[in-house]
């Protein structure tokens, strides 16, 4: 019987080696150029309006506008755009050289259809529905005019995120949110989505044969989706992939050095528009006290957090919240780590350890014991902050929850402190400069909506009522000063987004919104010699 067993085991070993080797030998097809992107952003359904597929389709279904390298909004599908009548009428001139991947021409009708389609069918485009009066096509100018019932200054910014759809394909689709299509999403960019395969977790984009613009050297783009960062990192190190992409995110800092050591990759470092911050429940004592907030801002060792959590890819932030990469950034005082000052400020603000148990008390004599609500990825920062606060006499309990629970608990204001991040789009939403995270009149998954100070709301409204860049600058400064004085959120660090790419290709282009994933990148990519 021993013999029989060993035969079984041997044959299993043999099969494994054969299977392993046969597939090893599959030769790379050299006739076509394929870019393989590894991404931790996974798609749940082959639905065009899936958050991540929406990002991936930015190069297949162009948006009306886009953001350039410097954060300025420029035309994309529209060669140019203009706003008139107090920002109520927006006119977009459509590039006449665009063709859908099935050969039909892109017309203003498609844009009109898309805008109305979003307004009527797509829940997250509710703002369009609320304001939209009419969309008119001006055929002679190859343009569309979008008319709103009220002024909307952020239209050009909003339209950086809406992929224009081919009317002849989508008009028959009644329920787009639940529409599933695996092959051939007709697109008008240099590439179109040719296949969304969830079983192999690959999204494939092929060259749009009717693309009239600059021709890419890339024939196929494959986006390989991974459920764990480890597997993704291993495939990158293997050289199976060409580039890493995560929407609004960086390659994990801890894995970068190893990847660079393979010699196959270079990195693009770009200051993140988003950031990591300590949010506070401003409706509760003692966080509602600006002096308290100010005092604890001195208790945090920003350099250490940046070192431990961002591994040197982070920098100590300013009191003005907004990172330098944003338009109209104002230099506000640096956030400072000064334990003595923190203690002194707390003392001055009336937080004293009256009963000598090592924990400070609020003015009404209760020990300050705070609950810090965290999603798992911020646990380490949380541990650090907990330790810092302990040093000034504040007890903190960490509660780590999954993201849905986090959302529901923070919406119910069941927390004292939380650590969360802002995304590039998030920094731009609402009245920009991160205001969308604080304005109590809003709701949303990632936002705290905990600030109802009239002064703050006024600044937001000011921003929302103008497209004039001179005025905007003033208001932006106001907002940053407000942050600096009131500290509704304390930035922990500003960080850099690192995107590793294979040295086999060069010509990567990065925009602040979508990182390297944009048409420019794929049109400019060159095989490195």
């Amino acid at each position, binding site marked *: 019987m021993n013999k029989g067993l060993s035969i079984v085991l041997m044959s299993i070993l043999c099969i494994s080696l054969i299977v392993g080797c046969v597939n090893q030998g599959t030769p790379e097809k050299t006739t076509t150029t394929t870019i393989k992107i590894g991404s931790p952003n996974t798609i749940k359904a082959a639905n065009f309006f899936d958050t991540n597929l929406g990002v991936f389709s930015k190069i297949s279904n162009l948006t009306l506008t886009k953001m350039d390298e410097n954060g300025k909004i420029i035309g994309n599908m529209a060669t140019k755009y203009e706003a008139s009548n107090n920002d109520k009428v927006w006119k977009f001139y459509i590039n006449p050289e665009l063709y859908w991947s099935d050969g039909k021409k892109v017309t203003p009708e498609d844009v009109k259809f898309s805008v109305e389609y979003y307004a009527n069918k797509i829940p997250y485009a509710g703002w369009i529905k609320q304001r939209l009066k009419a969309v008119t096509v001006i055929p002679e100018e190859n343009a569309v005019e979008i008319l709103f019932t009220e002024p909307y200054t952020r239209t050009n910014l909003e339209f950086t995120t809406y992929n224009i759809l081919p009317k002849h394909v989508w008009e028959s689709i009644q329920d787009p949110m639940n529409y599933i299509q695996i092959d051939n999403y007709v697109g008008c960019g240099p590439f179109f989505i040719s296949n969304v395969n969830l079983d192999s977790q690959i999204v494939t984009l092929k060259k749009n044969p009717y693309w009239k613009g600059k021709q890419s050297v890339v024939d196929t783009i494959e986006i390989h989706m991974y459920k764990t960062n*480890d597997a993704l*990192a291993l495939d990158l190190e293997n050289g199976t992939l060409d580039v890493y992409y995560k929407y609004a995110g960086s390659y*994990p800092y801890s*894995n970068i050095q190893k990847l660079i050591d393979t010699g196959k990759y270079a990195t693009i470092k770009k200051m993140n528009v988003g950031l990591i911050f300590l949010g506070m429940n401003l409706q509760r004592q003692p966080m509602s006290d600006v002096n308290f907030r100010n005092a604890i801002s001195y208790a945090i060792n920003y350099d250490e957090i940046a*070192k*431990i959590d961002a591994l040197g890819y982070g920098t100590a932030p300013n009191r003005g919240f907004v990172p330098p990469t944003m338009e109209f950034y104002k230099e506000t005082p640096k956030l400072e780590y000064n334990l003595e000052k923190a203690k002194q400020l707390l003392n001055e603000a009336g937080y004293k350890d009256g009963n000598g148990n090592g924990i400070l008390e609020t003015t009404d004599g209760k020990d300050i014991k705070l609950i810090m609500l965290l999603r798992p990825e911020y646990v380490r920062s949380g541990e650090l902050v907990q330790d810092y606060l302990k040093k000034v006499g504040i007890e903190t309990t960490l509660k*780590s*929850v999954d993201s849905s*629970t986090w959302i529901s608990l923070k919406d119910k204001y069941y927390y004292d402190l939380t650590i969360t991040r802002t995304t590039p789009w998030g920094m731009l939403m609402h009245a920009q400069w991160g205001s969308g995270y604080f304005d109590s009149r809003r709701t949303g998954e990632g936002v705290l909506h905990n600030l109802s100070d009239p002064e703050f709301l006024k600044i937001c409204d000011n921003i929302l009522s103008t497209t004039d860049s001179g005025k905007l600058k003033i208001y932006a400064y106001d907002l940053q000063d407000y942050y600096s004085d009131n500290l509704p959120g304390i930035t922990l660090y500003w960080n850099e987004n690192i995107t590793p790419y294979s040295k086999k290709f060069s010509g990567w282009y990065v925009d602040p919104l979508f990182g390297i994933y944009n048409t420019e990148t794929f049109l400019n990519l060159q095989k490195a010699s």
Partner: protein
Amino acid sequence: MTHHIEELKKYAISKLNLNAIGITIFLLFLFIAIAAGIISPYNPWIRFEPYIPPNSSHFLGTNDMGNDILSELLFGARVSLIVGFGASIIATVLGVIIGIVSGYYRGMMDEILMAITDIYLMIPRIPLIIILAALMRPNFWLIMLLIGFLWWPTTARVVRSSTMQIRDASFILSVKSLGFSDKHIILSEILPNINHVIIPKFMLTIASAMFSEASISFLGLGDPTMKSWGMMLNFAFMKGGLINEMWWWYLPPGLCIVAVVFSLMLIGFSLEEKENIVLGLE
């Protein structure tokens, strides 16, 4: 039982000494858990330079926070064993009570209790505990309670079937006829006679609980404030320990879990084999 086998059995001695290995490993870890405060080189919460590879002052280097990994590991023994023991005590107490009541009193009570047990057994436990852990927010004690309250059915079944085997034994009938109370019979007559199924089951439950705690922690649903081995592993994988080949970070907690679970299973299985009881079934 046949006399023939009885006669031969009297002569047979168990040659299984595997559990000596198990007991040695387990006692070693028990010692570590108890003496963690004395034998660990540092306080596991103190921060040194992060990501230091092993050297003479940090035998297993430091982690992403700069905590000494060896100290974390030694303190982790305490946390992991408490989870295991706590959960197992709850599960065993529940299982024994339900099993004995069901097996001793039989009848309607038995029908109902066993129906509940069967249903419990069919529920996919790991997914359920993942949900419940997410629902009630990860907390060390809570995870322990949850595992305890979900892991009793197998014990209950074994205890029930052993109880049923001996409830009609003459010695139970004779003490019953002598006028002893049910309480006395259960505690003093039945319990000592089913010890041999409870103890290995208890050991296996500890192993299973530690195993589950590690799995839950790996999904990020563990208690981040407790440095259990599962949480250490979670951070090691989350912060690039595997990718950066920092074997000193992810292997030790992994191997410790394996070793303790291994030792407990070894003890459990050896005891079960000795008593010829298969895993948990009638």
